[in-house]
């Protein structure tokens, strides 16, 4: 069916019901990311898919959006079985997904970006008519969108709105939003929830993927909780209390985590392992680059770098790892022994596939990458393959890397196992300083626990760790101090335990506020809910040891 507007947008009737039937999805490596999940949603429903990182939420939704082919199971729309060979097929059936990472071209205008996405538009396009049509359409949907603005000038929240609008324009009846609030400031999130309510009132089906319980309260009507690829509960959102939700997500009743009291190092006696003064870096991925950043890191300390991505993290890490030019001073103080070994600094990059490892080489070679030119891995020029192999076998055992074969090529490993390889390699070189960038991104709960445990163990032995992450829960769990980056500047450095999570969240998104302004937001409830609820919702607590090992 074609619309009257002539822009080839499908205006077919609304979808009454969409459902997934016993979806199983295996990834290479054998683990089932999704294991026999069935769920469905009817017109006008906001269905929240709740689960920890690595629970299989995104994979399940990618199956619905035609991005992953299920190993078994199928999708039904209005009772008809649909098979999607490619995402376009799902789009044709009115299913669209907004990803955590946007797919907009920054140098094009909103209207041009939306023209790119048309799946059954004609060959010709009248730009003026098109943007006029978009304006009307946006107004109709109640979205504040100016079609002629360059996407590059929009804020992240506005870009997300454009992504959603694109799906509407393309005729999507089922909207899948994958962790939509992870990049949003609290007010922007409220606005998003308003839009979600409006779309559901108009008869759209909305799947909201999240690990934040308060989203369930904000917009959710139905609720599916996933844990380790399995559906553990499906019910109406109002049926369960917050702590019941949390324990269903995590799988066991939450025990409070006895955090070992850190012996505060006397800062006057120990010289910092990393001392950064007046660091200026020209922009790489953040529009503001990095401006006059100063901080220091003590041995045995875990310093968290909090910030919404694209606020200077890449620039900071680039400068620290020697990949980018900078002005200012970076002083890395290693003691004599570790200066001789160039392994004084360990680096766990955010991109474990293209930066952290050599995928075509074996696990054994990847584990030797850092120290291959030193004893015991080699003497003079000759490699000691026996030693490299024994080291690999030992690391595979200690870090529980699968597959167990040291000769397995690195590409055959899952993300979690690859991260374990990188972790093993970087930490076993006994570094004095470790720079870890989102080291737990996309990992399952057990692996997240292992990463935290290993890093905290290193810190106890006197290694300074710079922990860059977007996840505040994680930072508050692992770090001793937290540095907040925003627009390439330090908004503040806080000791964990002396600051509210909400304050840090606010600084990340909006910078310093007048105190009365903050209180108002607090009273309005923009700030606190996230922190109070999700601080109870930390699966890693259960996994971590009591801190004396």
């Amino acid at each position, binding site marked *: 069916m074609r619309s009257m507007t002539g822009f080839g947008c499908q205006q077919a009737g609304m979808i009454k019901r969409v459902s997934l039937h016993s979806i199983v999805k295996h*990834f*290479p490596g054998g683990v089932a990311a999704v294991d026999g999940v069935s769920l469905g949603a009817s017109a006008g429903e906001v269905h929240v898919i709740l689960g920890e990182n690595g629970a299989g939420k995104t994979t399940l939704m990618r199956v619905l959006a035609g*991005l*992953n*082919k299920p190993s078994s199971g199928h999708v039904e729309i209005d009772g008809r079985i649909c098979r999607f060979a*490619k995402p376009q097929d799902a789009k044709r059936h009115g299913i669209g997904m907004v990803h955590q990472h946007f797919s907009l071209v920054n140098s094009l205008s909103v209207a041009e970006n939306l023209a790119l996405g048309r799946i059954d538009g004609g060959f010709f396009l009248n730009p003026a008519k098109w943007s006029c049509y978009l304006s009307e359409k946006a107004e109709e949907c109640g979205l504040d969108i100016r079609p002629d603005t360059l996407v590059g000038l929009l804020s992240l929240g506005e870009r997300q709105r454009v992504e959603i609008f694109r799906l509407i324009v393309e005729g999507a009846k089922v909207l899948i939003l994958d962790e939509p609030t992870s990049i949003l400031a609290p007010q922007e999130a409220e606005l998003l929830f308003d839009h979600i309510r409006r779309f559901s009132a108009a008869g759209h089906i909305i799947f909201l993927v999240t690990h934040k319980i308060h989203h369930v309260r904000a917009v959710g009507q139905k609720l599916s909780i996933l844990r380790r690829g399995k559906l553990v509960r499906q019910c109406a959102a109002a049926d369960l209390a917050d702590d019941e939700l949390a324990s269903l997500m995590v799988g066991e009743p939450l025990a409070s985590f006895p955090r070992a009291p850190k012996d505060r190092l006397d800062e006057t006696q120990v010289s910092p392992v990393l001392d950064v003064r007046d660091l200026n870096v020209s922009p790489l991925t953040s529009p503001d680059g990095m401006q006059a950043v100063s901080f220091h890191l003590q041995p045995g300390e875990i310093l968290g770098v909090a910030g919404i991505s694209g606020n200077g993290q890449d620039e900071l890490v680039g400068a620290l*790892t020697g*990949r980018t030019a900078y002005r200012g001073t970076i002083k890395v103080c290693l003691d004599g022994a570790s200066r001789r070994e*160039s392994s004084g600094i360990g*680096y766990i*990059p955010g991109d474990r596939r*293209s*930066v*952290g*490892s*050599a*995928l*075509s*080489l*074996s696990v*054994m*070679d990847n584990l*030797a*990458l*850092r120290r*291959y*030119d030193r004893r015991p891995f*080699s003497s003079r*020029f*000759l*490699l000691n*393959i026996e030693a490299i192999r024994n080291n690999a076998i030992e690391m595979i055992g200690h870090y529980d890397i699968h597959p167990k074969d040291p*000769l397995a*090529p690195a*590409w*055959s490993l899952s993300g979690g196992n690859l991260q374990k390889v990188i972790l093993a390699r970087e930490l076993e070189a006994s570094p004095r300083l470790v720079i870890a960038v989102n080291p737990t991104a996309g990992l399952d709960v057990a692996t997240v626990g292992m990463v935290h445990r290993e890093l905290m163990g290193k810190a106890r032995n006197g290694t300074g760790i710079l922990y860059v992450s977007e996840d505040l829960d994680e930072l508050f769990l692992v770090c001793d101090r937290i540095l907040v980056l925003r627009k390439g500047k330090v908004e503040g450095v806080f000791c964990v335990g002396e600051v509210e999570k909400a304050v840090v969240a606010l600084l990340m998104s909006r910078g310093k506020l007048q105190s009365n302004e903050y209180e108002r937001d607090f009273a309005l409830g923009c700030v606190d809910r996230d922190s109070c609820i999700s601080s109870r919702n930390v699966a890693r607590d259960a996994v971590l040891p009591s801190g004396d090992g």
Partner: protein
Amino acid sequence: MSPVTLFYRVEMVDVDSSRRGTWLPSFAGPLGALAIAAILFSVILVIAGRSPSATLWALFNGAFGTKFGIRETLTRCTPLMLCALAVAVPARAGIFNIGGEGQLHFGAIASAAVALHFGSGLGSMTIPVMVLTVLVAGAAWSLIPGLLKAVLNVNEVLVALMLNYVAILLVEYLVHGPWKDPSALGWPYSAPFPKAAVLPTWQGTNVHLGLLFGVVAAGCFWFVMARTTFGFSVKVVEANPVAARYVGMRLQSYLLITMALGGAMAALAGLGEVSVIQGRLRPDISPGYGYIGFLISWLAGHRFLIIIPAAILIGGLYSGSDELQLAAGLPSATVDILLGLVFVGVLLSGPIRRWLELRQRSLEIE
């Protein structure tokens, strides 16, 4: 050595083959490529009304069936093996060296310079001096694209390819001009090399010391790549330059070293051709050995120990082409068709292999 360690050693050799992340054995690629070539060649022969089996047999017999054939095969395979090594060494660091032909010609010029300048003056030292000069000259010639790549990130393929013409024309200039032998009756030849500047040959045949150089070099390169820290670095640089840089490897130095080693190998091929086969510097010393070496290196998957048999096989095609003419009545240029088909086979075997791997990995659409 206990049987267990022996087995373990054998297994280690295979690590090298799993470099490309495949479950197929290392020789599957080359054999597959040859099989594809043989099938396509048979189709052409059938269309031309010849018997494929008889023709292929004549070819094989010509190359390996007689003493003369084997000698000719070994002579032909020497420059091919060296030129293949010239491609394989940089390829292991992820660099294309298409400049083998130019490096070969420049090596020929360098050996002629030593031979003509010193004559027999150096006595028994002539050969060592000549070999060293040629190695340095070949390395220097290959470092032109190498340095441009390392410093300015200029495409090494284009530069090396263009330099091939420069080196060939340089030979032409020298034999038409300054180095022209007045007693050559107007032919564009240099003066013949003195006896002392001719590489030792084996029992009066044209099989010369270059073959030994090639085999020993292949063995050395294999050892260096499989067992030394240098080889490990090269492997990582090829597999992931970004990761290599983060663990502190200097990419540029590996680029330059492997390129220089490659250039030196191709130059040795030039030395053998002018010193033994031609006995003087002249144009047309190489029927494209540099390019066929490229083919052989790809056929062997840049694996040094497989380059040896691959070079012997391709050298055999050349020496067998005479037999093809005599016995099967086919023009000797038929071999060029077959060589072309081998290249097609190499190109096809890559995608086929990847397809097989992909099926195994059941990759996700992203």
